[in-house]
């Protein structure tokens, strides 16, 4: 008997205390988590599922107190992946995830008659626990009365009131957190079978502590009368969305130009200082240009996320979703899908990241899968080039034809996205769990500190991706475009040598190899090389065409434009590029998923490579089909 090595209790006491945060959505749980853990939070995923796992260390505890922020849930036996994870973690059923030592149960003090039900469920687990009441300032503002001590007497555990975003009550809470191992186990009735009995208990407790009457939040009511008005509400919604759309294009441009210049300077610097070799090429054209082509989206992403977090913090995001839900519901999406899809006009990567606000698993997946159809800014250089080169600068009535074609491409992308959502919902995604509920939080002034932290987190996540996956893809692509080299030609200009090298490279051969497949679309091998290169990122096709047409550096856009206009097929004596070819190529870009970053973020957000593989393949097939129809139709009409 003395062979038993150690008492379990002793072993547990040696490591850090692990506290799990339990609470409903909108309970202020995440605000509290951020306030307690500062910048130590680590965001990851639970193995095999798309549920976000957030853990951090209590600031000042020197690693002694670890806090796990569980997904928001209204009950502990729910059906969504989020709710399932909460249940599994609390019962120690997740491999590699030790059962929490104690529970920090978070409840919104203004919704006590609902949130105490979850508090009861959590406390009835019989683990050491502490209850945090958030937003106690609102209770006072709404002439309510709440005595944490009285509630504490009913529950048998400590109850602490806080105002998370202002830091009120956090010092008291920290004091308790250091001592989590000594928290009490609640004295609440067990054996409550259903929600009816549970809410009866809640009503009794709330009545007995005298906390059951709260005046309406008149300020939010007044604002809502305008912002959710049948007419004014729609006008405001449209105005906010136009402003958001405008900001990511107009305001980001100067910064994007600056970044572009900066990376070009860096590449030139590398070329100027190091002796010429393949390594310099890899560094300048592969690594620096590749990463630069992604970092250039950082200004858009910063503006976008500042906007999104601001709308979220003041409470308008939920209203926007409320206004537009009916429309999105028609294609099987939810109001919450709208803003992520709108964000995809900048870049699908932050758009897909923003789908985390969609609580319903089915609608979230549908939104992620159709997001790449939205016209992102990487398609713009391609469209701009082809429209400028082949669409006549005439007018249809008062509207320019070139602008009209551009608008048509945007409309086509959005229409395809919504149609695809509708089809996916009635086929592949049919039968997946779908839930709908939405709360309109009280309007609040945003706090700068929170905003800066949230935007910083999003920007870091984006840059980390650029630093890893994009970097790797850029290097691989550079090698494909440069290996092997052609035999040197005597007297050739550097541009001609570059062209010969490109044609001899793996990518050049791939371009030739796929020519039979793309010939029905009107594309020759040169477009083929461009398409192969654009699999990394769409806008790469412009610089690749510049290389193919041996355009000297520094004038790539105008040079390519003139080169593709003048290109004659030696076999037929006719121009290679015509309006039908240009239209077919643009339609190809509307449909195809040519973006390694999007594929990578899709894999991350859907928990595996299955869905990105499906999206890539099906979108490629659609692109071929769409281009084929466009090419044939345009030739027939012309």
């Amino acid at each position: 008997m003395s062979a038993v090595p150690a008492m379990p209790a002793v072993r547990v006491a040696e490591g850090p205390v692990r506290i799990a945060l339990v609470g409903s959505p909108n309970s202020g749980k995440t605000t509290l988590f951020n306030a307690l853990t500062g910048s130590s939070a680590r965001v990851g995923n639970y193995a095999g599922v798309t549920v976000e796992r957030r853990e951090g260390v209590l600031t000042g505890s020197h690693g002694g107190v670890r806090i796990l922020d569980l997904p928001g849930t209204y009950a502990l036996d729910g059906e969504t992946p989020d709710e399932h994870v909460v249940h599994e973690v609390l019962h120690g059923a997740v491999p590699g995830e030790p059962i929490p030592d104690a529970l920090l149960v978070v409840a919104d003090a203004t919704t006590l008659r609902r949130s105490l039900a979850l508090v009861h469920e959590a406390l009835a687990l019989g683990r050491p626990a502490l209850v945090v009441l958030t937003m106690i300032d609102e209770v006072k503002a709404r002439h309510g009365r709440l005595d944490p001590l009285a509630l504490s007497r009913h529950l048998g555990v400590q109850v602490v009131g806080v105002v998370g975003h202002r830091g009120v009550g956090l010092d008291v809470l920290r004091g308790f957190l250091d001592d989590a191992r000594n928290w009490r186990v609640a004295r609440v009735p067990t054996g409550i079978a259903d929600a009816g009995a549970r809410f009866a208990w809640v009503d009794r407790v709330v009545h007995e502590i005298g906390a059951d009457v709260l005046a309406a939040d008149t300020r939010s009511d007044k604002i809502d009368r305008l912002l959710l008005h049948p007419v004014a509400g729609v006008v405001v919604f449209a105005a906010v969305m136009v402003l958001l759309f405008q900001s990511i294009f107009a305001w980001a441009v100067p910064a994007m130009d600056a970044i572009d210049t900066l990376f070009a300077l860096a590449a030139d610097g590398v070329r100027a200082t190091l002796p010429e070799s393949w390594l310099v090429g890899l560094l300048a054209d592969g690594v620096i240009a590749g990463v630069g082509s992604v970092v250039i989206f950082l200004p858009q992403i910063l503006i976008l996320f500042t906007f999104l977090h601001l709308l979220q913090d003041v409470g308008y995001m939920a209203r926007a979703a409320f206004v537009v839900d009916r429309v999105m519901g028609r294609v099987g999406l939810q109001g919450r899908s709208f803003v992520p899809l709108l964000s995809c006009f900048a870049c699908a990567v932050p758009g897909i990241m923003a789908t985390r606000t969609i609580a319903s698993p089915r609608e979230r997946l549908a939104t992620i899968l159709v997001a790449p159809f939205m016209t992102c800014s990487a398609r713009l250089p391609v469209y701009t080039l082809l429209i400028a080169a082949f669409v006549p600068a005439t007018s249809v009535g008062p509207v320019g034809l070139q602008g009209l074609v551009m608008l048509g491409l945007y409309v086509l992308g959005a229409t395809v996205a919504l149609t695809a959502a509708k089809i996916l919902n009635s086929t592949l995604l049919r039968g997946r769990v779908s839930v709908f509920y939405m709360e309109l939080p009280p309007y609040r002034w945003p706090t700068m500190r929170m905003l800066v932290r949230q935007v910083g987190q999003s920007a870091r996540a984006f840059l980390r991706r650029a630093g890893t996956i994009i970097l790797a893809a850029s290097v691989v692509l550079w090698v494909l475009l440069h290996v092997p080299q052609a035999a040197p030609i005597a007297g050739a200009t550097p541009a001609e040598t570059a062209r010969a090298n490109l044609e001899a490279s793996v990518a050049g051969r791939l371009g030739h190899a796929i020519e039979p497949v793309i010939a029905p679309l009107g594309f020759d091998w040169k477009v083929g090389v461009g398409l192969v290169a654009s699999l990394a990122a769409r806008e790469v096709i412009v610089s690749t065409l510049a290389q193919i047409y041996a355009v000297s550096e520094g004038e790539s856009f105008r040079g390519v434009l003139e080169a593709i206009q003048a290109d004659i097929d030696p076999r037929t004596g006719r121009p290679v590029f015509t309006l039908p070819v240009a239209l077919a190529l643009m339609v190809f870009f509307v449909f195809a998923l040519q973006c390694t970053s999007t594929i990578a973020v899709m894999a991350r957000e859907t928990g595996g490579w299955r869905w990105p593989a499906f999206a890539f393949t099906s979108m490629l097939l659609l692109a071929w089909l769409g281009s084929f129809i466009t090419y044939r139709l345009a030739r027939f009409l012309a």
Partner: protein
Amino acid sequence: MVFNFSETVRPLSTLRPGERGRIAPGAALTGRLADLGFVPGTDVTVLRRAPFGDPIEVELRGYRICLRESQLRALSVTLHGAMALATVRGVARVADGAEASPRATPSGEGHVPAKRRA
């Protein structure tokens, strides 16, 4: 045979903004709506519809939540006779007094004093 004119049972989705009903016996005691507090005997007020008609924001248990019309169709509520009649005739709503709406209470004065159990 006695007809009960004082109460009418209707799906919650048919209530107009401002109308209040009490969830009828027989509503599910498990599932998402139950977890949200939609259990028999709970008073629910319809607050507003979204500009395009759906979803609907309701108030119950002193909090508010938005659900789609299709979800509220599954919940039957009883409209108290006086309220239902008042709505039909367009006269001022008669408070039923059983449980004052939190919205109707101008300040904290109306609350029931806390009782302590021995």
